Each structure stands twice: as C-alpha cells, then as structure tokens.
C-alpha cells in the first residue's frame, strides 16, 4: 500500500512539474498577464480608486468577489469547528473547585453546596489547574494593548501600507489568543464571550456582502463602490476608497471573531474549561 501511494505521489508530482513547462517565464513582459491586466492596475489604480497600495485595491475592489467568498470560507471554517467540537454539558460536575485569588486557597463545593458570591475574589478552576507564571502574565498584560492597537492600525492603514482586514483581524484575534495562553481560557472567554464570537463572525461577512448589495440597490453593479458616492457625499473616486475601507473592516471583524472561536473550541476540545 505504501509503495502504491509513493508511486501515485511521484507520478502526480512529475505531471505537475511537466505542466509548469507551459508557464510563461518569470517576469516575462510578453505573458498575457503582463500585457493586459498588470499595466491597467499599475497605471489606472490611483486615478480610479485613489488607493496607493495596488494590492489592496485589487483585493477589495477589482477582485472583491474573491475576497468576499474567502471571508465566507473562514466563517464556514469557524462554524464547522463549532459543530464538530463543541460539547454542551447539561449537567455540571458534582464537585466544583474555586480558588480565592488573594490568598490562593482552594475550596471544593459539593453538589448542592452554596456557590461563592459572584465576586472577583473567587475564580473557577479545574483539577488540572497550574499556577500562572507572574512574569508571563505581566508581560502579556503589557503587550496585549499594543498588539491590538497595531491590529487596528493594520486594518485602517491598509490603503497605504502592506496589510488590510485579513492581517489586522488575525493580529486582533492573536491578542486574545495570547491572553488565553498566558492566563487561561476562562479569563479570555470572560473578555470575549462565545456569543460575541458567534455574532461577530457572520456580522463581518454581512458588512462585506451588505456593502456590495447596497451598491446594487443604488443602481450600479454589485461591489461597484462608486455607487456609494451619493450616500457618503463624496466624489465617486473617493467613494471607492471609502468602500474598500468599509469592506476591510468587515473582513477584519469576521476574521478576528472566527480565529478566536476556532481557538476556543480547539484548545478546550469544545468544553470551554481551562484550555491549554
């Protein structure tokens, strides 16, 4: 069986390498992409959309169907992780452990026992609980605001520099993942509830598709942001630039929520307990 697999893999690889012979040479000025598309994007992007970063304009304006369904794929990935992994326990375990944060004492609450009052002094822990490292906790607490600020900058500055909604969303999601790793999943889930994740990820997709549909309602093609000129009170070229920003925000929101959602389900095997 192993030999057959090897033969198939080698044959497929050889066929793929044989297929690359037909490719145009690297940076060949006579290739079809360089004769029609690239010159148009390089010469016309600035006057058509007033976006200096051509990659952003191509991703979110000229090829916006592609990006819209990419966002949908990410949302579907999050939903699939949720459906496959999430476990809803109807019954709470009999004994629950609570830790008094100030003294470090752990108390065990038997079934039917009185739960500590809902204050910040007690935190729920599992039997596998290990103490947080003070250095890691403090450094991450200092770092996370700056990471989030950088994520917002990447989304907002995508017109002028590398980056955009996708990268900024991943950075924003990674800051919450860092919180979950440096402390525990319960702390992170308290900051970003499961319902918020589940609501924000379709909201991002909705912002994207809704912007496109709004252009359709205003009388132009789907995703032709120059239709937004009458709503935003700007000229059509600036409207395309603003449309790209709105769409990037949608992508960022969807990606951030989905990344956190997948991490929560994956690291706790769907139980939403202590996490990694």
């Amino acid at each position, binding site marked *: 069986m192993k030999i057959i697999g090897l033969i198939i893999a080698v044959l497929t690889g050889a066929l793929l390498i044989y297929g690359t012979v037909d490719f145009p040479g690297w940076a060949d000025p006579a290739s079809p992409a360089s004769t029609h598309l690239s010159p148009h994007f390089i010469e016309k992007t600035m006057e058509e959309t007033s976006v200096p*970063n051509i*990659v*952003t304009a191509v*991703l979110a304006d000229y090829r916006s169907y592609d990006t819209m369904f990419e966002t949908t794929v990410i949302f579907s990935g999050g939903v699939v992780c949720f459906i496959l992994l999430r476990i809803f326990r109807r019954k709470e375990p009999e004994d629950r452990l609570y830790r008094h944060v100030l003294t470090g004492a752990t108390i065990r609450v038997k079934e039917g026992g009185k739960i500590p009052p809902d204050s910040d002094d007690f935190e729920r822990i599992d039997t596998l609980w290990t103490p947080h490292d003070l250095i890691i906790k403090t450094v991450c607490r200092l770092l996370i605001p700056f990471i989030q600020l950088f994520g917002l900058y990447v989304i907002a500055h995508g017109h002028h520099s*590398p*980056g*955009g909604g*996708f*990268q900024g969303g*991943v*950075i924003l*999601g*990674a800051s919450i*993942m860092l919180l979950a*790793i440096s402390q525990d999943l319960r702390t992170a889930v308290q900051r970003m509830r499961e319902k918020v994740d589940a609501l924000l990820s379709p909201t991002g997709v909705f912002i994207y598709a809704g912007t496109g549909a709004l252009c359709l309602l205003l009388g132009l093609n789907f995703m032709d942001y120059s239709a937004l000129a009458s709503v935003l009170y700007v000229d059509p070229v600036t409207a395309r630039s603003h449309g790209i920003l709105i769409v990037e925000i949608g992508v960022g929101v969807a990606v951030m929520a989905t*990344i956190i959602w*997948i*991490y929560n389900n*994956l*690291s*706790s*095997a769907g139980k939403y307990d202590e996490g*990694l």
Partner: protein
Amino acid sequence: MIWQLDLAILTLVVIAGIGAITVKDLLGAAILFGAYSFMMCLLWSIMGAVDVSFTEASVGAGASTVFFVAAVFRTTRRTKD
C-alpha cells in the same frame, strides 16, 4: 534579490518540509511547520510580495501554529505510523 540568501532560505524550506513529514513527534512537526511558514514568509518578502508575506507571517507562522499545538495538546503527541 541576493542569490546566496535565496538559496539558503530555499534549502531551509525544503529541510523543514521534509522534517515535518518524517518526524515522529507531532509537536515537533507543528513547530517545523511554523519554521516552514516563516521561511516562506521571508521568501515572499525577498520576491517583493510584502502583502502575501505579511499574511503568511500572521496566519501561517502565528495562528496556525497555535492551532496545531492546541490540537496536539488535546489528542496525542505520538504518530501511529
């Protein structure tokens, strides 16, 4: 494009890729995938595709490595084959 740097990074990409599929320890494979992604990110930026390189750094080397580690932590660290 400096060809010595290019060659060194390409060699590391191949080594990390082969290592990731041969190593028995799945946690090691996850980390090797992270290294592979990071080297690919360097390659993209050498070729001038800064946006792709940024995505590769944040998604490939950052988020997906954490997902791999989380999955290994919740399942088993040893491969069966």
